[in-house]
């Protein structure tokens, strides 16, 4: 019995060791991948890479890369590109799509069209700060209540109660509120 277990362990150990590089490569501190799409290669879809990507072929879709993206040697990308480090559009490269990058290099001769977002600016900054959206919820709650009116008479009174009082988040504590060890769970009761 013991030998059998030992044999099993010893036989799986090398196999596990062989497999480890693959998961380690996905980790941030592991070897990062570097993908090259040659002139005759073509990708249609979304590509996420932890590492660098070099496009000399055609990409139709989105590129999201933790390293840098280089588009050159006739490379063409149609779609959004996100690079945590750098995007280079070489002199024979073409990129049509919105771009979110830390660094951007466009060489003379390159084709590039799209929206560029660099730095800490968040997309769509002009939007004013909205107050917590509590208005549409009562309306939403009322609709089914109204529908239920002919069926049950007592229900409409009960229904708005849990909706009206916003449930306090677990992290939030109001010192003025009486703190009971077990807060009444109305929703659970109703159900």
């Amino acid at each position, binding site marked *: 019995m013991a030998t059998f277990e030992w044999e099993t362990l010893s036989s799986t150990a090398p196999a596990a060791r062989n497999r480890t590089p693959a998961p380690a490569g996905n980790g941030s501190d592991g070897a990062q991948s570097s993908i090259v799409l040659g002139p005759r290669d073509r990708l249609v879809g979304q590509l996420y890479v932890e590492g660098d990507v070099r496009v000399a072929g055609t990409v139709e879709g989105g590129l999201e890369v933790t390293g840098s993206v280089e588009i050159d040697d006739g490379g063409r990308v149609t779609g959004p590109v996100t690079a945590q480090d*750098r995007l280079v559009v070489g002199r024979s490269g073409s990129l049509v799509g919105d771009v979110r990058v830390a*660094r*951007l*290099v*466009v*060489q*003379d*001769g*390159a*084709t*590039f*069209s*799209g*929206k*560029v*977002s*660099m*730095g800490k*600016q968040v997309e769509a900054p002009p939007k004013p700060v909205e107050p917590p959206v509590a208005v549409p919820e009562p309306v939403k709650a009322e609709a089914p209540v109204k529908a239920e009116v002919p069926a049950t008479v007592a229900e409409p009174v009960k229904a708005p109660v849990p909706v009206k009082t916003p449930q306090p988040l677990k992290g939030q504590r109001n010192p003025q509120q009486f703190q009971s060890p077990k807060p009444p769970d109305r929703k659970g009761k109703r159900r």
Partner: protein
Amino acid sequence: MDVQEAVAESTSVASAEDNGDARRGGQRKFTMGPNDSLEGKLVYEGDVHVDGRAEGEFKVSGNLDVAQGATARISIEAANVTVKGQVEGSVNVHDKLTLGKNAKLSGDIVVRRLQIEDGASLNGHVRMGDIEQHGSGG
């Protein structure tokens, strides 16, 4: 005619005839210094060098360059534009736009050729192609 209704706030822009407005090989040049400032609309036949602080609208038949350290909140239309400082506003370039390594540009761009050096910062839409405009093309 609101042509050249630029408001000069410092001496050297005011004396552009003497210092700033120089001719180089037949091409006129409007040159601002680092302490100059300009607010308003400038329509100029020739090249313009923007330094210091500029605000408004620049329509230039030649080349326009924004010096390093300059702050410009302007909309630009020019044949070629080189940015080494900060620009906020739309940029229409008939030929080529170059963003230097310290350039900061936020605004929409219409351009035929584009060159961005590493280190430059850009926020806005980029559209490559010819500018739709009447009159002097190319």
